C-alpha cells in the first residue's frame, strides 16, 4: 500500500514538474511576446506633476532594440519634437529653436518631458533573457491573473538594474508588474502593465504605468492606442536626416 502511495506521489510530482516551465523558458516567452522585429505605434504619455497633468502624444517607430524614432504630435507646444535613438546615441530635434541636440552626459539623467523616465532609462535596450538569470520565487495572483513571480539577477556587471522582480501572467506571458532594484538593493522603479489585449499574434499591454520610486508623484501613464508589429519601416526614418 505504501509503495503504491509513493509511486502515485512520484507520478503526481513528475506530472507537476513537467507542467511547470523553467524560469528561463518564462523569460524567453516574455521576450518573444514583448519584442518584435519592428513596430509602429501611436501612444499617449500622461505626465502628472504636482499641480497638473499633461498628455503628450506621439507616433513611434522601432526596429529591434537599438533603433527608435518618435515624433510628438500633441500638445501644440511639443508638436514636431522628434527623438531619434541609434544604438547608444540619442538626438532630439526642437522645432521651436529649429535645432538638433545630442543628449549626453548629465542631460541623459534628466526627465523625458517631466515624466518618471529619464533619457538614460529610454536608452535601455535589452532582452530579459540575455541580461538576467531568473529563478521562480513563487506563484501569485496579480490584478486577478495567475502569475509567476520571478527574481532576475543581472548576468553581467554592465546591466543597468542589478535585480528585478517580475510578475508574469502565466497564460499570456506578459509581465504585469515589475520592480527594478539598484545594486544597493534600493527599489528604484516599478512598472505596472494592464489592459492586456490580443494584438496580431501576441498579448500586449495597452497601458503601462512607470513610477520612479525615488521621485515624488503619481508616476507616468503610458497608453498604447495603436500598435502594429513586424511592419516594414523605410530606412530614412532611422537616419539623422529626419531630424529637421
Amino acid at each position, binding site marked *: 500500500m505504501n509503495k503504491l502511495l509513493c509511486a502515485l506521489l512520484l507520478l503526481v510530482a513528475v506530472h507537476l514538474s513537467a507542467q511547470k516551465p523553467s524560469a528561463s523558458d518564462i523569460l524567453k516567452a516574455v521576450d518573444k511576446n514583448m519584442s518584435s522585429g519592428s513596430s509602429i505605434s501611436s501612444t499617449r504619455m500622461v505626465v502628472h506633476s504636482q499641480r497638473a497633468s499633461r498628455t503628450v502624444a506621439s507616433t513611434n517607430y522601432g526596429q529591434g532594440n537599438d533603433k527608435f524614432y518618435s515624433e510628438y504630435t500633441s500638445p501644440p507646444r511639443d508638436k514636431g519634437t522628434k527623438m531619434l535613438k541609434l544604438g547608444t546615441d540619442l538626438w532630439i530635434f526642437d522645432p521651436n529653436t529649429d535645432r538638433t541636440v545630442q543628449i549626453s552626459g548629465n542631460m541623459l539623467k*534628466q526627465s523625458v518631458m517631466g515624466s518618471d523616465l529619464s533619457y538614460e532609462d529610454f536608452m535601455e535596450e535589452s532582452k530579459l533573457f540575455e541580461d538576467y538569470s531568473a529563478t521562480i520565487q513563487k506563484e501569485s495572483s496579480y490584478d486577478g491573473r495567475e502569475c509567476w513571480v520571478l527574481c532576475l539577477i543581472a548576468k553581467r556587471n554592465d546591466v543597468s538594474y542589478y535585480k528585478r522582480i517580475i510578475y508574469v501572467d502565466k497564460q499570456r506571458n506578459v509581465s504585469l508588474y515589475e520592480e527594478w532594484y539598484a545594486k*544597493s538593493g534600493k527599489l528604484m522603479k516599478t512598472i505596472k502593465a494592464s489592459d492586456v489585449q490580443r494584438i496580431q499574434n501576441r498579448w500586449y499591454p495597452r497601458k503601462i504605468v512607470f513610477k520612479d520610486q525615488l521621485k515624488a508623484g503619481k508616476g507616468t501613464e503610458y497608453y498604447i492606442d495603436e500598435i502594429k508589429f513586424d511592419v516594414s519601416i523605410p530606412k530614412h526614418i532611422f537616419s539623422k536626416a529626419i531630424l529637421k
Partner: protein
Amino acid sequence: MMILHLAFKNIIGNGWRSLVNVLILSIVLIAMVWMQAMYYSWIKVAEKQHVAWEYGSGMFRVSSYDPFDAFSWDSSFAPIPQAFKQQIEYGKVVPILMTPATIYPAGRMMPAVVKGIPNQQSLLSFPSGGFVSENPFAIPAMIGTSMAKNARLKVGDVFTVRIKDSSGAFNALDIEIVKILSIPVPSVDIGTLWVDLSSLQEIKALPDAASYLILADKSQNTMEAPGFRLIPKDEYFADLYQIRESERAQEYIMYSLLLFLAMIAVFDSQALAVFKRRREIGTLSALGLTKNKIALLFTTEGVLYMVFAAISTAVLGMPIFWYFTKFGYRLPSGYEDFGMPGFSEPIYFSYPITIIMGTLMFLLALTAIVSWLPTRKIASLKPTDALRGKVR
C-alpha cells in the same frame, strides 16, 4: 624752465577755473585707478580662490576628461599612478574622483556631479575630517551654498543619489548633508556634492581610481602620470582670462566716456584761454617768444593740470583706495548667482604700480595733445593783431 615757471604762475592765477579742471581730472583719474584695481584684484582673488579650492599648485587630469564634452564624464577616471601613492599618503597630492549622478532631494529629480575627496587632507580648503555622520545608513556629504540654495538643501537633509558604477549598473544610496560650505568657486559649488573619496570609489566599484590629482608643489609637475595629463595654469585659468577679456571691453567703454568728459574740459578751457589771452599772446610775441614757445606754454599749462590732478588723486583718492584695500569691495547681493568666480566674497584691492603709472602716462600724453590742439590758432596770429585783441 621759464615756460614751466610761467605756466605754473598762469595756472595759479586762473584761480577757481584751474581748480575745477584739476578736480575733474582727479575724479577721472580716481575712477580709472579704482576700476583698474577692481578688475585686477578680482582676477587675483578668483585665481587665489581657485588655487585654494580646486587647483592647488598644479593639476593632473585624467586624459579622457574634457570639461566641455559631457560624453567624456562617465568614463573620466583612471588608476592612480604608483608614483603618486606615497605622495598621497604624505598629503602632498589629493586625488579626486568625479561622476555624473541624479539626486532626489525631497522627491525632486535633479542632475548633479558627485566628487570624492579624501576625508583627511589639508591641501584644499575643504574641512579635513568633515565627512562625519551619526546616520549609519547615509553617506555624509558637503555642498556649497549655491548648491544648497538651488537644490533647497540644508544640513541634516537625507536624500537618495543615483549613480552608475564603472560597469554601467545603477547604484542608489542615501546621502546626508553634514556641512554647507561657503565655496567661492562656482565650478566647485554649483551642482556638486562632495563625499569621502573611499565611499565614492566603493559606489563606483573603482578602488584606487581618480579623475584628477591636485599637487601641493609645483615641482611635482614633472612626475610621470600615465593616464593623466598635466593641466598648465594658463589652460586651467583660460575661462577666467576669457571672462576678463570680455569685461575689458566694457571697461574700455567706461574709460572712453570718462576720458572724453575730462578732455572736453581741458580742451574747452584751453580754447577759451587762447581767445581770452590774445593780448598776452601778442605781448609774449612782441617780447620775442616764438609762436612754438607760446604754444608750448599753453600745452605745458594743460599738462600741469594733469600733474596737479595726479597729486590731488593721491591725496583725495588715498582714503578711498585704502578703504577698499582694508575692507574690500563686496558686489551687490545676487551677483554670486552669476556663477562667476570671485563674486561671492569681498574683493580686497591691490594697486599694481605698473598699471597705475601706465594710466598716468597715457593721460599725460592725451592731455598734452588735447592742450596743444587749440594752440594751433596762435600760429596764425599776427603779434600786432594780438596786441590789439584781434583774432581772425
